[in-house]
Structure formats: structure tokens, C-alpha cells
């Protein structure tokens, strides 16, 4: 309210009827600076109390426990340079003592008599599979719903309202909350994780998608409407060709996020790499832990790089074509 009033040039007209631009500018600048200082001050106060509150609510005092972190890191140092490699590729270890710690070959997933996938590669694929499948499901449903939520395509207010609230509810809950719920129903395994990540992805992509649609150029749509095209035809030919690059780009970004989400869900019972990582850490299997972290790291970097490359190509091309 205040801001709109001070933006009003009419208040800066002097007795002679001249508009005092410089005075108006200075007033606006002063106002902006005041807001900046107030904002920064508020930020510091919030930051201080958040840190204090986090430390208070922590079970052990953070600073007291800190040395144990270095013990843990110390234990991680492998016995010899090859131990991580053996854990990674399920090769038998000279240290094998009958315990779980070095039973690498037992996790092999055999494809033929002699050809096998090392356990952690297989688990990583399980996790990637959850991520890819739920991104696809999220993409498809987000795609269908976004046109109904976009104000430039759906003129019925109530329909837009219902679809938008629906998408909001879907993305309101973090994957882990939804997964906990479905794990209770379907018991352990990847299906609850797929459902959970998909639901969240529909909500998240649906919102991004309808914002893209609302920024679409409506001239092609108008041309098709004037030619007697119906709603579905107008959307398909007038809107989809121009928004598709953006949708794909957002879908890839979501895939990056979903790889991480499915890893985390694995740790709470959805299987995959997250589960073996949690077990391995809690049981103190250092070489296995390092092997899993390595494979996770490499996979995530690869997915992110590939996705970044594809996004650049897709959106780059679009930027090139839009000028015409």
C-alpha cells in the first residue's frame, strides 16, 4: 500500500505543476535501501535463533560429538588400495573371515552362468529405475493436468482452482512422508517409493508446466481457434510445440532431483542403493561403504552432466528457433 502510494508520480508534482523526477527517484532509492537494511537485519536474527534452536534440540551436543566424526573417517581408510575395487566388483577378498564384512561375491546378480552384475551396480540400477519411472509417470500426469491449470487455456475458474489445489496437495508432502505411508500399506520394496516419488513429481512438474504454458505465445492458438479447431487440437498444435523444450528441460531437472530422492527413500526401506548404504554404515563395513559412496557419486555426477548437456541442447535449439 505504502509502496504503491510512493510510486505515484502525482505526489511529486510541485506548485508549478512540474513533476520532480529527481526527488521522486531519491525517495524511492531511500525506501529501497531502508528495506534492504531491515531485510538483512531480520535474516541475521533468524539465522542466529535457528542455529541455537538446532543445537538445543540435537540429542548429543553437537560440539561434544564432533571428535567422533574424525574417528569414523579414520576407520574408513581401507586396508589396501584394492579393497574398494573388490567391494565394488564383488571379487573375493583375502580378508574374508566368514563375516558379512568381506562376503563380496555373495551379492552377485548372475545373468548367465558366468556373467554377473556386481551387487552395488545392481542396487544403483534399482534406484535409478525408481527415479526414471517416477519421473516419467510424473511427467505424463503433470503434462495432462497443466493445461487445465493454465489460465490462458482453461477459462472455467472452478476447474483451474480444483486442478491447482490438487497439484498443490501432491507436492505439499515430501517424498519420504508419502513413502512412509505407502510402505505401511505395501510393505518394503520399490513400489511404494515409485508411488511416492511419482506423486510428488506430478505436483512439482505440474506447477512448473502450467507456469510455462501461461507464458506461451498465444498467436498460434488464436490462429487455430479462428480456423475452428477445438480445445484439444489447439493445445496440441498451438501450445505443445512451443512448450515441449521447456517441459523436457524441467523433466530432466526433476530426474536429477529424483535420483537423490530415491536414494534417500532406499534408506527408509524402499530398497536400492540407499538401503545397502545405510546397512553398510551401521554395520561398520568400511570398504563396502566407500564402494557405495563412490558408485553413488559417479552416478549422480553422470546423471547431472548428461541432463545438463541435454537441457542445453534442447533449450539452446529453442532459443535459436524462437527468434524467427
Amino acid at each position, binding site marked *: 500500500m505504502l509502496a504503491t502510494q510512493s510510486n505515484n508520480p502525482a505526489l511529486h508534482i510541485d506548485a508549478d505543476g512540474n513533476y520532480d523526477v529527481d526527488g521522486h527517484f531519491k525517495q524511492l532509492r531511500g525506501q529501497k535501501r531502508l528495506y534492504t537494511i531491515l531485510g538483512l537485519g531480520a535474516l541475521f536474527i533468524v539465522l542466529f535463533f535457528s542455529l541455537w534452536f538446532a543445537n538445543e534440540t540435537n540429542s548429543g551436543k553437537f560440539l561434544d560429538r564432533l571428535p567422533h566424526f574424525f574417528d569414523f573417517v579414520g576407520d574408513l581408510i581401507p586396508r589396501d588400495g584394492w579393497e574398494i575395487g573388490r567391494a565394488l566388483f564383488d571379487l573375493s577378498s583375502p580378508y574374508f573371515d566368514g563375516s558379512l564384512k568381506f562376503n563380496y561375491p555373495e551379492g552377485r546378480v548372475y545373468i548367465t552362468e558366468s556373467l554377473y552384475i556386481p551387487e552395488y551396480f545392481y542396487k544403483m540400477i534399482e534406484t535409478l529405475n525408481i527415479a526414471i519411472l517416477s519421473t516419467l509417470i510424473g511427467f505424463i500426469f503433470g503434462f495432462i493436468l497443466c493445461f487445465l491449470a493454465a489460465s490462458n487455456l482453461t477459462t472455467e475458474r472452478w476447474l483451474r482452482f480444483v486442478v491447482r489445489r490438487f497439484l498443490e496437495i501432491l507436492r505439499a508432502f515430501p517424498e519420504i512422508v508419502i513413502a512412509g505411508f505407502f510402505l505401511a500399506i505395501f510393505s518394503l520394496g520399490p513400489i511404494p517409493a515409485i508411488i511416492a516419488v511419482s506423486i510428488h513429481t506430478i505436483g512439482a512438474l505440474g506447477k512448473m508446466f502450467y507456469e510455462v504454458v501461461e507464458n506461451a505465445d498465444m498467436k498460434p492458438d488464436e*490462429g487455430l*481457434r*479462428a*480456423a475452428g*479447431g477445438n480445445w484439444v*487440437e489447439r493445445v*496440441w498444435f498451438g501450445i505443445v510445440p512451443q512448450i515441449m523444450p521447456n517441459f523436457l528441460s524441467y523433466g530432466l531437472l526433476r530426474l536429477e532431483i529424483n535420483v537423490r530422492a530415491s536414494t534417500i527413500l532406499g534408506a527408509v526401506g524402499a530398497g536400492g542403493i540407499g538401503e545397502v548404504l545405510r546397512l553398510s554404515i551401521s554395520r561398520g563395513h568400511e570398504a563396502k561403504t566407500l564402494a557405495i559412496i563412490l558408485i553413488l557419486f559417479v552416478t549422480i555426477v553422470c546423471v547431472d552432466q548428461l541432463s545438463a548437456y541435454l537441457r542445453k541442447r534442447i533449450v539452446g535449439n529453442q532459443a535459436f528457433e524462437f527468434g524467427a
Partner: protein
Amino acid sequence: MLELKNVTRRFGPNTAVDNVDFAIPEGQMVGVIGASGAGKSTLLRMINRLIDTSEGEINFGGVRTSALKGQQLRNWQRDCAMIFQQFNLVPRIDVLTNVMLGRLNHRSTVASLLNIFSDEERAMAIAALERLGIEKVALQRAGTLSGGQQQRVAIARALMQQPKVILADEPIASLDPRNAQIVMQSLKDINQSDGITVITNLHTLDTARSFCERIIGMQAGRVVFDGGPDDLTEDAARKIYGADNLEDAFSEAVTSTSLNGSRSKSSGSERPPVARPAAEQNPVYA
């Protein structure tokens, strides 16, 4: 026969089109002129039903098109093709498909979505492109064409609709003189050889004079002139454009000069030649 009866359109407190009343017999070529904001676009958009009328009615061949709904409305839009200043093609789709999109209303939605067009439709689209002399770019993306080419694609798409009326909203306002000439000539050809009624909004008076057999002048939403090109006197023009904007109406005299100049070689129509540049013709305005 296209009849407008007391048609009014309001946007909030503004009246964009005010109590417009005229009839256009089949096969006429009509130019609608007026200063920017006179309500020309609003008028055409109401006829095509991109927007609704606030008051009054529009009839075509005894059907009240201003009251149609659903499929019947889309059928009317198919019969009443529209061409836009900014072409309104789908830039990322190839030209041939863009032209075939003119058939949307003739076919099932499912077939359209799956991109299934019959051989006849493809032949028809190619014929339309040939007629407009742009068959060479048929497989290029529409967005990569020049403005003049895009507008011809838009006309080809309109032809694919097999319309009874073609509305054109400032079809040459973003084109260079040579392309403007080609586009206006194409519209004229379609009007003369296919007998399709053409109603076109034009920014400049001279283009309307050269190509239209009837001119409707609008000012602040009202029709203030309706007659043949020869009736459009200085007084009439002053009424349409207002004394202040009169220069505007002729500011593109260069455009219209070259329009008329190149016209003589490409058209052998029986229309009276209006080849003199505006400045010469009406020195008062210059």
C-alpha cells in the same frame, strides 16, 4: 450475405465498436479503414467469434452466427477464415502441416492429433501452396520463413478451410511493399476467381482504394463512411481519420506508391487503375 445489426462491443467502460450496422453481399471485396484504435480488429474478431458481441447480432445466410455455440460455432469459424497481422502460424511446425491445420474442423480430432492426413488433403495443401508460389518452402519450419512467405502460408491455410468468407486483420502491416503487393493481390485473386467474400482491415487508405470495391471507414467504433473507392473524398477521409491523424493515413504513401507501381505488371484485372501516388492524387493531404 453477411449482416451486422446494431453490433456493439464494450470493454469495461470503453466502447470499441459502437452500433455498427451494414450488410455485405456474397463475393464482395471490402476494405475497413480507420485510425489505430477505431475498432477495426474488434469488428473482425466479432465476426469470426474470437470475441463475443456485447449487443446486436451478426447473421450469415440467415444463420445467427453471433449466437452459435460448440461444434456449430467451430463450423462457422471454419467457414469464416481469418488472417492476422502477425500471421499466427505455428512456428515450430513445417509449412505443409501448418497449411493442413486449416482442415482441423473437417476431420476427427484423433486423426489430427496422430498427424494422419489423407493423400487428398496433402495434395490440396500442396496445390494451395503452389497457387501462392511458395511450394518450395513446404517442408521448412514456418518460423524460419520471411514475413511475406508466412502471410502467404496463412492464406493457404485459410484456403484449406474452404471458407465462404475470409477476414484479414491488417494482413500487410508488417510486410515490405513488394510482399504487401503480393499478399493483397492474392486476396484479390481469391475474391475474384473463387467468389469468396473478403473483408480486410487496412491501415492505409490507398491500399484500400486500389484493391477494394467497397470501403468502410470507422472512427471511434462507429461506421462513418461506407461506399466505393471513388466516393472516398478528402472530406470523408478527414471524417474517418480526424484532422490530426490525416497525415498518418498517408504516411505510408511510399508503400502504396510502390504497391500501385508494381501492380500494373502483375494484374490484368478490369479494375480502374488507381496508380497515381497519394500525394499527387490528393495534394492537400501531403
